[in-house]
């Protein structure tokens, strides 16, 4: 839950967009930097001044998105909750609800050129709509409290709010309606369809309602995954340095460092296979279970590794070759299994089933692999 932490920040709270959240009547004040570069102007409304945000993303927005995509402080990229406007909305304009994760907010506003609408940003603790809905922070209570505190009933004369469809797991639309009088309309899954949705009398087509997991969706998350899974690489390296230092032959430390670097290539390769190739090839790899998909890719990687075996300067021993293959298979299967958490279509029951079967096997296999490597080293001395 690392991302749920509200960071202490010494930023003065006067920096929030006027009329959105500074005002005591308008709910919470957050210590986030101002969106000033996104704001075109302020307009006067019956509930105070409201910031009109730009519908184009500038260099600062793009740099921020890039930073988050490569995993730097990605859990601290927030927008202050409150009411915002795009275009020149009036009391008949649609009300769109969004999360206070800036990537979500940007994804929405950049699709709203030439649209007059209100955007109600609720407090999802800086988490995107779908994940926040899963956690319940994009939830019924929060939406009801924002509708009330932000006086949406005073802002518009109609009784409709548009929620992103992916917020649905966290909300009970009928309860919101009962408590606030606002009818909930679920909009499209993707912000890019919002204009078409509004033009289509607020009816989301089947395509707009369907979650995809396209090649682009899968590629865009690879960098963040890579940052996380690269952590054990230095451990592999240290393991092989120690492994190579224990030797009957005379040792040159520089050579050990270089040799160990070659030694870890198959294992680093397995990490890349699991985090890059599995996501890219996901739908065309045989089997439904992710761990089996990882196994398939691991087998291919192992075959290549065995063909190139001398290059890696690993011990010339059948046992060590077996150990290498076992560990590679564990790495690719585990990383593929881990990708269930990133995918957009795996069920809890399915993930639970395959985890219960795969996880113990993976642990035992990994232990066998490491023990075999140690056995090979011991045999060197006997």
């Amino acid at each position, binding site marked *: 839950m690392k991302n749920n932490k509200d960071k202490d920040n010494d930023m003065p709270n006067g920096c929030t967009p006027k009329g959105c959240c500074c005002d005591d009547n308008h709910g919470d004040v957050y210590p986030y930097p101002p969106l000033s570069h996104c704001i075109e102007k302020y307009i006067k409304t019956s509930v105070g001044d409201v910031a009109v945000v730009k519908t184009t993303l500038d260099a600062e927005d793009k740099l921020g998105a890039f930073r988050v995509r490569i995993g730097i402080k990605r859990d601290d990229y927030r927008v202050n909750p409150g009411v915002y406007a795009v275009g020149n909305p009036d009391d008949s304009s649609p009300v769109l609800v969004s999360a206070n994760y800036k990537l979500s907010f940007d994804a929405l506003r950049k699709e709203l050129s030439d649209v007059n609408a209100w955007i109600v940003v609720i407090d999802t603790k800086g988490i*995107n709509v*779908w994940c926040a809905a899963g956690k319940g922070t994009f939830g019924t209570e929060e939406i009801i409290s924002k509708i009330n505190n932000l006086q949406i009933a005073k802002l518009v004369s109609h009784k409709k709010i548009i929620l992103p469809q992916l917020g649905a*797991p966290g909300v009970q639309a009928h309860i919101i309606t009962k408590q606030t009088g606002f009818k909930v309309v679920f909009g499209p899954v993707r912000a890019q369809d919002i204009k078409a949705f509004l033009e289509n009398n607020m009816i989301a087509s*089947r395509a707009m309602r369907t979650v995809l997991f396209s090649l682009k969706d*899968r590629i865009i998350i690879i960098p963040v995954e890579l940052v996380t899974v690269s952590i054990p690489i230095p451990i592999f390296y240290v393991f092989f340095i120690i492994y190579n230092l224990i030797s009957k032959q005379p040792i040159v430390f520089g050579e050990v460092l270089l040799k160990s670097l070659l030694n870890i290539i198959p294992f680093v390769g397995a990490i890349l296979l699991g985090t890059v190739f599995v996501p890219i090839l996901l739908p065309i790899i045989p089997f439904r279970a992710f761990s089996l998909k990882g196994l398939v890719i691991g087998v291919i990687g192992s075959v290549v590794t065995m063909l190139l075996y001398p290059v890696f300067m690993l011990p010339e021993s059948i046992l060590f070759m077996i150990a290498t293959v076992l560990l590679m298979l564990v790495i690719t299967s585990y990383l593929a299994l881990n990708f269930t958490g990133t995918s957009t279509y795996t*069920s809890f029951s399915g993930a639970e089933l395959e985890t219960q079967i795969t996880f113990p096997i993976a642990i035992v296999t990994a232990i066998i692999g490491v023990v075999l490597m140690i056995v090979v080293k011991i045999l060197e001395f006997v």
Partner: protein
Amino acid sequence: MEHQYIKNVATLQLDTDKCTGCKMCTFVCPHNVFEVQNRKSVIVDLDKCMECGACAHNCAFDAITVKPGVGCAFAIVRGILTNSEPNCGCDDDGACC
């Protein structure tokens, strides 16, 4: 190519007697699991269900039950290790929105 996950495991259930055919489940389901036929909702593709819980939450007539949860192995492993409910500590953005 269409993504397909493990078959016959989803905990989704629909009580047709309670269903009024309001179509809410068809609006919120991200994988088109439901279709309304003859004024009643029908589960047309159970294996597509990812147990997000959107349908059950938004059914005003309590016609749908599902054990919602995150389809995330890492959360499940952590749940087993810490002896707690699997919880999604990951905050992936790309896959979601």
